[in-house]
């Protein structure tokens, strides 16, 4: 009985060692691969650590969206990518995602707000930029909209669980 119990303890220790080893192995590539995608606490940290001069942040937010971003992910290599996730103040789910990615890179961040059906796609003049605006439906038949445009060396993409009215105001507030 005692031996049996000890064996369960040994098994637990083995699993702990395995998890620790996996975590170390997961950390190791970041030593060789500086600038790889990781989580940041705030936008300033992204600017300083990755030496990215221009990070496009909206100055307008509807009341339903909680500021600051709930999650910020960024990388400098192999191309620049910054992703900001914003939560709904009432529901607590991710309601707005803004990504800023080196133009031409094949980076799509649509796991959390995935447009399942596009109902309308138009070219929208956004403060002199030629933006693409899509209106459609996301999971649970929720209306969602997406706008994307080229801004200098970057491609900006904003997707939101709402009608396009709020999204357009947010997008316009990102441009000076």
């Amino acid at each position, binding site marked *: 009985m005692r031996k049996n119990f000890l*064996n369960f303890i*040994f*098994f637990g220790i*083995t*699993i702990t060692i*395995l*998890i620790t080893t*996996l*975590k170390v*192995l*997961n950390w190791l*590539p*970041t030593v*060789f*691969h500086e600038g*790889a*995608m*990781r*989580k940041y606490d705030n936008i300033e940290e992204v600017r300083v650590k990755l030496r990215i001069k221009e990070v496009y942040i909206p100055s307008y937010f509807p009341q339903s969206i909680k500021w600051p971003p709930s*999650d910020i*992910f960024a990388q400098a290599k*192999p191309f620049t990518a910054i*992703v900001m*996730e914003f939560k709904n103040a009432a529901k607590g789910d991710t309601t707005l995602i803004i990504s800023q990615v080196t133009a031409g890179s094949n980076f799509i*961040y649509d*796991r*959390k707000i995935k447009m399942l059906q596009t109902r309308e796609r138009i070219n929208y003049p956004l403060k002199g930029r030629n933006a693409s605006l899509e209106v459609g439906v996301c999971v649970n038949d929720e209306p969602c909209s997406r706008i994307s445009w080229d801004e200098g060396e970057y491609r900006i993409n904003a997707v939101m669980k709402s009608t396009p009215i709020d999204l357009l105001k947010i997008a316009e507030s990102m441009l000076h």
Partner: protein
Amino acid sequence: MGMFIAQSVLHSLIAAIIVDRAIQIWGIGDPLVKQRFCLIVILFPIFSFHGYQMINPERGAISFRLNAIFDINRWLKLEFWNIPLGLLFILILSGTTLIFFFQEMIPILRHTFESKEHAFHEKKADDYPPISDALRGLSVEKPETFIIEDRDRILFSIMGERPAIFLSTGLVEILNSEEIVTAIAHEIAHIRRNKRPILVIVFILRVLMFFNPVVLLEFRRAVQEEEKICDDMAVSLTQKPHVLAETLRKLYYEVKDFNPLKNGNLSNLKDSLEEYSHNIHIMNRIIRLEQGSVSGNGGEWMKFILTLAVIVVINYFVV
């Protein structure tokens, strides 16, 4: 598809480590239980990726990956001397695919077709007194047994609707009647085991993991356990473990020195390694039978479920 392949290899590797440790820590010796543990490693990675995606579609999102225990993408994207590690990974998978194709698929297909054609000059064992006399002592339903005129030591069985056992005259010459009975009892065990569709299903599913080196090794381990299970069944039929051990020694075990430095080229080295590992496996079976550690009761379900649960939970956070 790439994510499925990469994660299935990783999931099977982690499952193999956990299974190996579980078997060792709990001192599991019953081949039936060991094989059941092996099946986790073979079958789990087929379903893990899609299963996890169904539970949480956001599992592939960056936010999840960054909080994961291990993210294989970090390694695959690394480059050393301008060579991406991902390329090395693809090479390993390609090598495994070739080994699977030439060492498993082609021999099985060949065996299937040869079995159907029955291209042997065989005669029924009933007409061969040493066999018919020996089999009289085996009180189970016996499949048809045939004798092949061949000086080599040959023993095999064919499955299907009309299963049959084949022995060569060369084999009958070196075995006494008790040994012939145990050899046939072992083949009867194979035929009985193959009647269970679960084994066929496992093999078909295993084919889906043709690229996975961990599954390749684990499947071979499961096959070795299958031999031990059939040994146990043969012993339960004959009650003579020492006779089966002696039969194995006569049939398959060859004492040879293994020295990799003496092998001139890679092909010879490969043959020597295969022979060496085959001998070790046979020796394990012989020792097991001689020590009387034959069991075959199954059980150990709690340990099995605990091990499976740990594998499922850890691999959820391995992307």
